[in-house]
């Protein structure tokens, strides 16, 4: 389970409300992920939090038939994915509730908020967008 840091807390607080908040750098004219104290590439000190829709595109995926680590022994087959938000940044996630045969790079995907009340954390999974 992830542990929020002082810098990243707005992101994890957002997920708990089933909202997605990213940092935006006006000088970069772009969104930033993961959360930082200064903008990556420019080290500009102008990061501000903005809410985004969470819609995105599947950049890549794999279906792991063997556990990626002992902690994920129960997770196979495990659909590991990289998604790009419409706003730009890419991030690691998992695909859930999808037909493995229907997964294709470039498909539209939407967020699935998965609450873990015991850990007071919400993870951000994705699934195929319904056309």
């Amino acid at each position, binding site marked *: *389970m*992830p*542990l*929020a*840091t002082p810098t*990243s807390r707005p992101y994890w607080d957002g997920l708990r409300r089933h909202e997605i908040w990213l940092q935006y750098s006006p000088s970069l004219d772009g969104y930033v*992920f*993961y959360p930082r104290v200064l903008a990556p590439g420019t080290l500009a000190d102008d990061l501000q939090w903005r809410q985004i829709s969470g819609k995105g595109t599947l*950049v*890549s*995926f*794999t*279906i*792991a*038939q*063997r556990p*990626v*680590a*002992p*902690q*994920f022994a129960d*997770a196979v087959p*495990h659909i*590991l*994915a*990289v998604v790009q938000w419409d706003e730009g*940044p*890419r*991030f*690691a*996630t*998992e695909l859930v509730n999808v037909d493995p045969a229907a997964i*294709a*790079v*470039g498909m539209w995907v939407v967020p699935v908020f998965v609450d873990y009340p015991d850990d007071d954390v919400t*993870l951000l*999974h994705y699934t195929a967008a319904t056309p």
Partner: protein
Amino acid sequence: MGLRGEAAIAGFFELPAARRPTGQPEFILEQWARLAAAAVADAGLDVTQVDGLVTCGVMESQIFVPSTVTEYLGLHVNYAEIVDLGGASAAAMVWRAAAAIELGICQAVVCAIPGNYFTPTSDQRPRDLGDALYFGASSFRYGSPQAEFEIPYGYLGQNGPYAQVAQMYAAAYGYDERAMAKIVVDQRVNANDTPGAVFCDKPVTIDDVLASPVIASPLHMLEIVMPCMGGSAVVITSCELARRGRNRPVWIKGFGERVPYKSPVYAENPLQTPMVTVANTAFGMAGVGPTDMDMVSIYDCYTITALLTLEDAGFCDKGKGMQFVTDHDLTFRGDFPMNTAGGQLGYGQPGNAGGMHHVCDAARQLMGRAGTTQIADCNRAFVSGNGGVLSEQEALVLEGD
């Protein structure tokens, strides 16, 4: 800009790859000493001539690593450093050593990577295995971006991340799994003629590769390196020492290095690997090009790594790698000799020493010591290094005297 090509690999030593530990277990520091002694002897040098050292991490000490190693060896060096670039470390160590020698601060530098991880244990002080074992090259410490944004989603280890890149490749350029399997098969031919290779006695066919289980789609088990124990070392020396040594000097003519990220999740285009810049820099420094190479030793933790490197280093056009490996014979007898000692897919991967396998492979050929697998008239070689997930990359252009 760059190296003058006046430092050489003067000697090397590579242990056989072993699936299981053999003999009395030894600490990494102890293995370091044995590897260094063997490589220095191979060069025909005296240990007292060694005045530089480059190491990777050692299990017995997380801090003050270079000085701990020099003290253990009893050397008094003018240049000591630690390189932490995963599978790219070996090639990175070689050019750093060459640069230090060309700067004139030292004359003989030992670079060693022990690879027997079954070291002595004590119940009184259980081993701290660190994050690498449980979290597959990702850090689980508080504040680590990997711990916070990757590991919770199963993005760890290597199989999944490399498989994702292969899926992207398939979507962008198409995918011929028989071509990918052929990379394994050709290298296995080389391994079958290489004493010490983990698969020395086991031939393999394309159908065998494709019949092996899919670990993470589209990668089959036999497209993934076999973790082994082993270890290797090289000695880099000045021109003067190299010419007085036992072996044909292998000049380090060019190198490139690029480290843009830890995880290709954040890459703008993971299919355009850092190797594009790395190889271009290395070839430019050496004043030669891909077609001037007599052999290549391409870092091959996975088939997809070798494929992307062949493309991005300029041995074939982007998106045409599968056709290239299909059209060429990659064995030591072939028209494009690649990984003539089996590569890591055929020789085995003893941790970070897997990267040093490629340096030894090229040095062995350029010194004319490759035995059955020797390529006639081998004078120039290209070596690639790769760490993380296509995220830390190196190239060397080597030339025999």
